[in-house]
């Protein structure tokens, strides 16, 4: 693993931790009702967003889902703009018009996210088409969950991307549940990566909680896309440590989270952040003191963003109709 620079490894760690601490900072305000907008926390799935985006360049494009805080931050979105958007404030990245599920920052190639399951896969395919028409070698990434493997537009997009050799990476974040429904009830088999094979798209299944494995796969895919041999499909196995929506459905007393306790605790052992921490410590890349310092620094940044968001203004009522048309 020593092939990676210390800078890269530390950066991957910092980004994962930023996402985690940002997500966790939202738990209390969600439970207290201060945040009303539906929030799909990505705690536990950080390695995918971070590993993939590390293999991309600033001008590359990504599209996300309802669970895209991590994608937004990993591509370079600002923490304060994210938190303000979750608070639905005018200072948010979408000026409080989108909320947690609609995150955008065109400057860094985050072209948007949307909760219509599989709805942004074709959009990413189109961004890749734009790149191919212009010949500017940009890569587009579609992040989507395992639930999307049950939507027809994914298959249309795979076919269209394959026929036109588009530079798009299909990144499936398989967290084993489509909202409440376990994957075994959704699909005849659990190996989603296989759906790309009939379209002659190179496809692999990897440990989505191993940031370096994700980075390596994404790098291979991005290089292929830039060389004109895209598209590429990556299935990342992962698990959400929080509820489908909100921190944890059990905590909220509704007990709609039907995941078995043993399964949850098994996956907690595979939490991508402690896992990577151990690797960094064991291989002598950083020390305990470094870790402490990094954590303190990121916590401070999140606190600052959180308080700024809390104090920022809501959009004005008289501006309701702004942004329907440009």
């Amino acid at each position, binding site marked *: 693993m020593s092939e990676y620079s210390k800078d890269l490894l530390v950066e991957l760690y910092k980004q994962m931790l930023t996402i985690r601490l940002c997500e966790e900072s939202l738990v209390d305000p969600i439970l207290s009702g201060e945040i009303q907008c539906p929030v799909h926390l990505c705690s536990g799935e950080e390695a995918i967003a971070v590993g993939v985006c590390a293999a991309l360049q600033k001008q590359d494009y990504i599209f996300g889902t309802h669970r895209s805080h991590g994608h937004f931050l990993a591509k370079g979105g600002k923490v304060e703009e994210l938190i303000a958007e979750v608070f639905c404030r005018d200072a948010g990245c979408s000026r409080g018009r989108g909320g947690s599920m609609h995150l955008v920052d065109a400057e860094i190639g985050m072209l948007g996210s949307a909760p219509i399951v599989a709805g942004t896969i074709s*959009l990413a395919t189109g961004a890749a*088409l734009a790149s*191919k*028409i212009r010949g500017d070698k940009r890569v587009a990434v579609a992040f989507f969950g395992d639930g999307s493997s049950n939507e027809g537009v994914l298959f249309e997009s795979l076919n269209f991307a394959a026929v036109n050799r588009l530079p798009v990476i299909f990144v499936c974040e398989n967290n084993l549940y489509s909202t409440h429904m376990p994957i075994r009830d959704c699909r005849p088999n659990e190996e989603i990566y296989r759906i790309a094979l009939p379209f002659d798209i190179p496809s692999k299944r990897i440990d989505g909680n191993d940031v370096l494995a994700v980075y390596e796969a994404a790098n291979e895919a991005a290089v292929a896309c830039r060389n004109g041999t895209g598209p590429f499909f990556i299935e990342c196995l992962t698990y959400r440590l929080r509820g489908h929506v909100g921190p944890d459905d059990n905590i909220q007393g509704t007990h709609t989270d039907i995941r078995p306790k043993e399964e949850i605790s098994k996956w907690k052992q595979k939490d991508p952040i402690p896992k990577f921490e151990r690797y960094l410590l064991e291989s002598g890349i950083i020390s305990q003191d470094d870790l402490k310092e990094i954590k303190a620094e990121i916590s401070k940044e999140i606190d600052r963003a959180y308080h700024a968001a809390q104090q920022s203004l809501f959009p004005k009522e008289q501006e309701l109709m702004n942004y329907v048309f440009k």
Partner: protein
Amino acid sequence: MSSNSRKLQYSLALNEALHQIMEADPSVFLIGQGVKSPWYVGNTATGLLGRFGEKRVIDTPVSENAVTGAGVGAALAGMKPVVVHPRMDFMLYAFDPIINQAANWYYMNGGKLSVPVVFWGIINRGGEQAAQHSQAIHALFSHIPGLKVVMPATAYDAKGLMISAIKDPNPVVYIDDRWLYETEDHVPEEIYEVPIGKAAIRRAGKDITIIAISYACHLAEQAAYELSQNGIDAEIVDLRSAKPIDKDLLKESIAKTGHALVLDVGWRTCGLSAEICSIIAESAFYSLKAPIKRLALPDCPAPASRSLEKAYYLSAEKIVQAAQEILT
């Protein structure tokens, strides 16, 4: 021949618009099913492939949802796609990218990123093609915030509205009708725009305002001629855009005539004609000397048999009769 006196077919005016804007703006591209095939898109795409190549004239498999979504994504990535649906019935497969995504995108990202895409749907009815090859679903799109909907009736507008639709930074649904493709009009040779949301008076008159759109404008003109033989002087307002609607011109015309007959090429219930009647009731009520009437398609799927088609579609005869009823 001066450029203003040149006559051109509707479909060739569209073709000229595409040639000229694709030449002027390398970010414009045409994508959709059958763009290589006259069987699908008539002569509207003639010569484009040879001139601009396969990168910008993209024939696609039948995957309306993904292909339309790809148009939306390409627009977000800085291009100006024209996504063509040679039979607009198939656009129903693409409602998610058009309605959930394109129409909402600019609003839900707080004005950070707009979607300059044209969804071009062709109404392809008559000829016993039945219910799934004949639908005019402009009212469905007009209902959606964030979409503009244009329906040119003349070759001049076909060209100018296509140019405007492509230049517009918002998603525009451009709907034409195969029945119009062979109609001719004066079409300037140069590139020009017809403003979206502005109606046009096709015939000035003082007795009754006939409000029409798309193919119905031609029927209205035939009807107006018939009416003139009976001493009735009809004014025809061509809406040109189903959204936004040019309320000012409607009010102005009805203030002059005091009578309104509303035509639509789509269905009656919750359709464009219903919206126009509401606008008139809300904003021109005191100008009216008699109740409004409307002629739209009956709330019935398009039939195949020619005998039923005759009953189903609008005709000049039905328009004349309705106008006379209003004025009696």
